[in-house]
């Protein structure tokens, strides 16, 4: 899998899928349209500042609440290359893998990395490097089965290939 590299947007505990993509926009399922409202209720400036390849870092239970797949879809369509968190809510975790949005659990990285740092993630090794600070962390590698889904860029392709 290709490595991710970008600037970090940092958030705290329990970022729920309602703030990632508020339900008032769920009358659309178009990724590009959803992306224009990504993170709107927690960080109004996110969509204006985010560049392709940037990385979201958060602490506990990222993506909790509603099962809306629109949340990882919006993040991916906004150009985010990876989400690093201490832990992910389980439905968000599944959804991210299923749509091919790279995510990685690493409590130390989630604590050590700050907003605005440049971070690189190697998905093959699970190594997360904070280029700005010159530190690196070992993230939790995915089980082989999930790696195959991510490598196929999502569950649909994975099933089609089987």
């Amino acid at each position, binding site marked *: 899998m290709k490595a991710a590299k970008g600037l970090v947007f940092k958030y705290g505990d329990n970022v729920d899928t309602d703030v990632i993509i508020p*339900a008032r926009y*769920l009358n659309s399922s178009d990724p590009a349209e959803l992306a224009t409202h990504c993170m709107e*209720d927690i960080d109004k400036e996110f969509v204006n500042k985010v560049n392709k390849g940037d990385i979201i870092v958060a602490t506990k239970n990222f993506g909790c609440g509603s099962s809306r797949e629109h949340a990882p879809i919006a993040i991916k369509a906004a150009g985010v290359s990876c989400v690093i968190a201490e832990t992910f809510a389980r439905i968000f975790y*599944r959804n991210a893998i299923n749509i091919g949005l790279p995510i990685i659990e690493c409590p130390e990285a989630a604590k050590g990395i700050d907003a605005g740092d440049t971070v690189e993630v190697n998905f093959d090794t699970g190594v997360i490097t904070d280029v700005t600070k010159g530190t690196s962390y070992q993230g939790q590698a995915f089980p082989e089965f999930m790696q195959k889904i991510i490598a196929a860029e999502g569950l649909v392709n994975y099933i089609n290939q089987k």
Partner: protein
Amino acid sequence: MGMTMTQKILAAHAGLDKVEAGQLIEADLDLVLGNDITSPVAIKEMEKMKVDGVFDKDKIALVPDHFVPNKDIKSAEHCKCVREFARRNEITNYFEVGEMGIEHALLPEKGLTVAGDVIIGADSHTCTYGALGAFSTGVGSTDMAAGMATGKAWFKVPSAIRVNIVGKPSEWVSGKDVILHIIGMIGVDGALYKSMEFVGEGIANLTMDDRFTIANMAIEAGGKNGIFPVDDLAIAYMKEHSTRNYTVYEADEDSVYDEEYTIDLGALRPTIAFPHLPENTKTIDEITEDIHIDQVVIGSCTNGRLDDLRIAAKVLKGRHVAKGMRCIVIPATQTIYMQAMEEGLLRIFIEAGAVVSTPTCGPCLGGYMGILAEGERCVSTTNRNFVGRMGHVNSEIYLASPAVAAASAVTGRISCPCQL
């Protein structure tokens, strides 16, 4: 090492004698569910798959309930997409406006969920059916698409938390207070990736509607599923509503739990979750200041069932909602609506100055039918009080039982019926 209730159901559906926590399995599905928000995304994904159609037209349930009757053109287009997919694939359990209800109240009522089932739904509150002893869990749209196409889903077998329920609840304490108390105790990620298995003699003192409410909010503690043992009450419910065969799975004596808690129902007090997380709980006795509110919502997949409406009506009978207060009552299904009508509950609500809506998820997720303006506060029997969940980012939601919601509608501030 023995297996939990959840592990036994998963093992049986994966064709295995034994599974253990952490194991990745592929399980056969008894039901795949979607609503008007999640199904259009799933349908688009399924169309990319090299399959002829759905795996079993009888094992898919499509329930437009979030933005119906359609709130705008875009939601009408989504519903049209779901309707046409249902028609094209001859989906048996598609529920049009007039038949529909809030999905997690509707499916058990229609007999589509029974003990021993493995159910996935593209809605996080799919965990509700654990009240009947099923393994049911929320997933996203792509999982729903794969489920509809193949009849299978991948799972990581969860470990479990055991909640031992004892005692008998006092008046005005119901299932909502039980689950809010538990979430307040363990936190919104207290059961992350895990099953919440509810056991104990106290369960006999909880109605089916209480149990649906408790299982429904397992996700609010991060849980993969919530599940109850199958007792006479659950069997009677299934016999009344379903013709399907059910299978009872009991946890092994030597099953292992990550954590165990005991909840004494008799010690619980009406409990309220303050903004902006379900874990920010206080009992009614811990609220020392007046918290004035603008709106009350009584309904949702959490608390829109007949017991809930009966309790609310008991509080509102002969009383009136406070001046300037909006009180919105939403029976969760058409059957519940009709029962409430026949029992005279709707008259009580309307005479008290509440409005009664057709079944919809509307206000719970800030869709429509009760959106909050900046600075407004709502006491709601729904399940989430996140920032902006019911409207403006600077509005506030207080989660509570139907009893507390109804009493608060009368006084205009957070109140318990015992204070009226």
